[in-house]
């Protein structure tokens, strides 16, 4: 409640509740004037803000879908609002015509080569933007008609959802209990179980535990064989060393043979000498044959010499035979 309520002065019966207020009507008038001033300023400011007092150019943007476009929304260039949508109409060809008013002072940003785009974001409204690559190109004439390129984030959503659904269905098929992936995994499982079981990977590769055992046994035998082969090779080696020593070592077979051959050469030389002597004896014998009588003494001597030579040759041959081991036993027996 106010400290003193307003009252009419007309009825005399009404109690006077307030003292007279000085310049009452003047004050009330001042408030009225202030209010009117504020209201007119406000209206003037709003009209100015809406671009009523400046000349504009018209621009018609043509698109196939005006969804999200509202009368009064901005046309921006580099983030600055340079125009406002005045009207949206559907043309006879089914195309949407968006009429945009661009103030004269901002019209310089629009050139004949300018490109216009309309984007719908997920958050916030639709935005119409202008891009002017070459600001030196001729300015856009009044009433120009330009196509507007649409980029719609929400347009992609249905396609994306469809793809995602297909993907999920495939995934579901893959992961189902009777899917081929499931079977494969089951096979892998049984395989790994068998691999970790008796016989291991070999049993899996050969198809059975028995076969694996055979292979293992074969390998064992091969190992043993190799071991014995190693022993055989060592003994062969020893034998060869011995044979080498026997054949080619000092006082070996070769040495003996060399000596025997030298002795043989000497013996053969003796024999040749003896034969020469025989030849001479025979010449002599021819001579003697004429003289048979005197020849018999010389013949007995010669015969003794021949016998002695033959005996030496025989002894030599025996000696060779004795020293030459291969004569007796040519086969080399491996232990």
């Amino acid at each position, binding site marked *: *409640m*106010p400290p*003193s*309520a*307003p*009252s*009419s*002065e*007309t*009825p005399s*019966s*009404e109690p006077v509740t*307030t003292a007279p*207020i000085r310049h*009452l*009507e003047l*004050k*009330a*008038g001042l*408030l*009225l004037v*202030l*209010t009117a001033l*504020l*209201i007119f300023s*406000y*209206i003037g*400011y*709003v009209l*100015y*803000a*809406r*671009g009523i007092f400046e000349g504009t150019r018209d621009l018609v943007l043509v698109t196939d879908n005006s969804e999200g476009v509202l009368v*009064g929304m*901005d046309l921006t260039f580099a983030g600055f*609002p340079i125009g*406002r949508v005045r009207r949206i109409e559907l043309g006879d060809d089914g195309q949407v015509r968006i009429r945009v008013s661009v103030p004269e002072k901002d019209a310089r940003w629009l050139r004949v080569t300018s490109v216009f785009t309309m984007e719908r974001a997920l958050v*916030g409204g639709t935005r119409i933007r202008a891009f002017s690559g070459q600001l030196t190109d001729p300015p856009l004439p009044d009433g120009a008609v330009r196509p507007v390129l649409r980029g719609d984030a929400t347009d992609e959503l249905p396609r994306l959802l469809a793809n995602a659904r297909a993907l999920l269905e495939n995934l579901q098929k893959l992961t189902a209990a009777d899917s081929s992936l499931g079977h494969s995994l089951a096979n892998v499982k049984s395989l790994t179980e068998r691999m970790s079981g008796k016989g291991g990977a070999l049993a899996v590769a050969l198809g059975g535990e028995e076969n694996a055992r055979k292979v293992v046994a074969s390998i064992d035998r091969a190992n043993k064989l190799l071991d014995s082969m190693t022993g055989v090779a060592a003994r062969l080696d020893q034998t060869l060393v011995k044979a080498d020593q026997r054949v080619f070592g000092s006082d070996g077979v070769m040495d003996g043979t060399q000596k025997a051959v030298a002795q043989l050469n000497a013996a053969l030389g003796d024999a040749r000498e003896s034969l020469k002597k025989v030849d001479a004896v025979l010449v002599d014998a021819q001579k003697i044959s004429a003289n048979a009588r005197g020849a018999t003494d010389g013949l007995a001597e010669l015969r003794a010499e021949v016998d002695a030579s033959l005996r030496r040759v025989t002894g030599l041959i025996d000696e060779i035979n004795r020293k030459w081991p291969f004569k007796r036993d040519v086969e080399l027996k491996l232990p």
Partner: protein
Amino acid sequence: MFHFGAVALVVAASPSAYDRETRNVMAKQIYFTALQVLPGFILVATLGCFVVTRAVFSVATAYGFTEYAQDLAMRVLVLDLVPLFVALFVALRSGSAIGTEVVLMHINGELDALHRRGADPLRHALVPRVIGSTISVVALTTVGGAISLVLAYLGVYGMSPWGLEDFTHSVGQIFDSMTTFGLGLKSLLFGLAVAVIPITASLDTPRIIRLAPIGVLNGMVRLFLTLTLIEGGSLAVRYL
């Protein structure tokens, strides 16, 4: 109620109704309703608008919608909060006073006395109060709107003058012709309701002195409902 409101409008629109006495009553009504409380109102409105602007700006920034903060603050303040706040303020301060005064005049037979002396009580006692209240509501709404616009600017741009162009553009975007017209109409309806409803409720009260509080109470409840309806209708027209 509607009849009385229509008559009050007709009387207010006829220049012959404004004689010296009528002007005096009207001036008093304006003085007590608006002028007397203007400094306090400016202070409260400034604080309230500052708090709301900062709150809206902070929330919008936190959610990443800074560019919409100013628009939102201006819409909320100028179009809804300030007019509703002014209407409730005037209703509580002057509407109840008008109701009490009229119900007492009605029960005491002062209005009949006026009538017997050849003076039209409607024209000399009631309509000036309605006009005064309406002018007060519109004046306070205008002042509150101006304060909220200034604070919406300061809240976003601070003392920098470089946001003026952007701010002007935002104002141009928000306050199109229909919105401005709607705001004016809403203020006018609020102003009329603040005086007309308590007066009609008082005149409907039986002439028994102990029923006077009931008459005032009825008037205030109806007034509150009417203000709610007007605000709800305004929101519905703008957003539905």
